């Protein structure tokens, strides 16, 4: 079976005035469908660069990245954008919801990007129920929600297009430990239902929920 993500000898170098910085140094790995992976490492080890490359927000200096078998290097900006919309779900540390939109509109946003018009809220309601958000909050804006509630909305938004991969950047980093645990439990449940989840974290408690851990040090995979 084709891997969902494949990194083949990927290097990422940031050219800076003070000198080039190698963020990732000849990295190769594969992510199979249904995996639940934690990417761990100290600050500056290259975790965020790895996330940006996996999320097609950036391109490698050398090497190849394949998402669902498609080589990222060959894609135009619009194709990469559509790939992010249709096959990748992003979950951020600071939730990153749109404050001008209510919960349902936030969740439906990727669907509306795809259809270009107003969409039936039925699917949003279904996903919001799946992430266990109370129904009375559906018409609230993100500013009226707690951190845990906002993260549930963000997860629902990431799930709305049935993505191949969920990319999570410190998903519990801005939550108290109790809420963090419930969010990780939610992700575990999603993984059991078939979602491929990759979590960038330096919290060992988060990594305990995952099935595999990739450790990065100085831009290389340590283990």
């Amino acid at each position, binding site marked *: 079976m084709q891997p969902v993500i494949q990194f083949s000898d990927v290097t990422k170098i940031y050219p800076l005035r003070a000198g080039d910085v190698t963020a990732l140094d000849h990295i190769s790995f594969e992510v199979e469908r249904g995996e639940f992976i934690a990417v761990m490492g100290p600050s500056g080890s290259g975790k965020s660069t790895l996330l*940006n490359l996996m*999320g097609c*927000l*950036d391109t490698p200096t050398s090497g190849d990245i394949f998402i669902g078998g498609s080589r990222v290097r060959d894609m135009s*900006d*619009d194709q990469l*954008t*559509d790939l*992010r*919309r*249709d096959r990748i779900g*992003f979950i*951020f540390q600071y939730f*990153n919801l*749109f404050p*001008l*939109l209510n919960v349902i*509109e936030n969740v439906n*946003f*990727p669907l*509306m*990007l*795809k259809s*270009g*018009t*107003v969409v039936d809220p039925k699917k949003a309601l279904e996903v919001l129920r799946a992430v266990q958000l109370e129904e009375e909050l559906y018409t609230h804006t993100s500013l009226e929600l707690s951190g845990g509630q906002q993260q549930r909305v963000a997860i629902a*938004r*990431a799930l709305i297009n049935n993505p191949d991969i969920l990319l999570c950047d410190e998903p519990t980093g801005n939550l108290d430990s109790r809420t963090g645990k419930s969010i990780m439990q939610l992700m575990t449940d999603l993984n059991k239902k078939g979602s491929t989840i990759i979590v960038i974290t330096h919290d060992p408690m988060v990594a305990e929920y995952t099935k595999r851990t990739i450790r990065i040090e100085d831009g290389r995979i340590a283990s």
Partner: protein
Amino acid sequence: MSTIFWEISKRNIRLHLLRSSLAMLGIVIGVVAIAAMGILGSSMVLMVSDTLSSVGDSVIVTPYSGGGGNPMGPSGGSSGTMTSMKLTDQDFQKIKRIAAPNVAIPVLQTAEHMRVGVGSEDIVATMYGLPPEDVPGLLILSAGGYNSGESGCLVGSTFADDHNINVGSRISIGINGEKGTLRVTGIIEERGMSFDVSTDNAVVVTKDWFETTYDRNDEYDQVVVKVKSGDTADVKTAIENQFNRNPRQKTVSVTDSNELLATIYETFGTITTFVTAIGGISMIVAGVSIFNIMMMSVTERIKEIGIMRSIGTRKYGVMRMFLYEAAIIGVVGSVIGGVLSLVAGYAMSAFMLQTTKYLFTVSSMIPVVEGILFGIVVCLACGFYPAWQAANLNPIDALRHE
């Protein structure tokens, strides 16, 4: 229009209502300045057109004065084949033949002292001598009848108003009435500015009375051809070809009233364009303000742009969102400006032209439409660069922005 970007744009404007309203105000002022100036200019052209339309389709022939003819009346100069500064009867007959079947009217003109009523002071006014049979084709009366006898005269409407003259009044001509007394038989309808005979402030007598009184025999100050058949330009050319064969020895100046009207309209058009362009400066200022608030909007929403791009919004979508904002400000501001420009145009017309009857005409509405379209275009143009900049932000940098 029901896209999510349209919705976000609307909500963002609502969120920053004061800022957006101030930007709109700039556009409102710009549109009002352009449209109101345009309305005023257009109304002026229409008013002048109304005033001058009665003198259209005339060709005026005067003796050549060296520097071109004076359409408002004859002036000095000399002619090779004619009596000094005058057209001879031979010239008149020639003009008549050339202009046929159009009517050629010989005009005599002088300035004269006259007195209206007993005990009044002497005044000086223009006197015209015209063949009585040609007067009905040239002048329209507002009161009384055309003068057929030698002792009668017609007076212009302004002259009649200024000196309380009615049909039947008597006017003594010359100092102490030495040239006789004339009875007013009719009041000439106001003609406004004209190129042939300006009768509003004048007295019109018969050609015979004029010739007898001023000892003028078969010489005229000008000949007016009323062109009913054909084109004034053709008549003008035909007369010039006959009289001014040698370009170095011109004998007559020929003026086509339609040509003059076109020049006047063109001049008014230029003035209107100029004042409208001055109004346009305020639109440029408004555009700068739009540019400024759009740049602010982009700067404030860099993180939001980063989120949008990361979850699958194409560059074009981000750009559209900001252009919608500029368009909303532009359309609302321009339409309000368009409505207010009608009020401003009304006030300016009433104050400066003393009439508002030209306000709701097609040519006066064109500047309003132009002002509205210009306002929208300026907003979109000034919103374009910020929108483009927003669309081309690096998603990773935008996501990191705090």
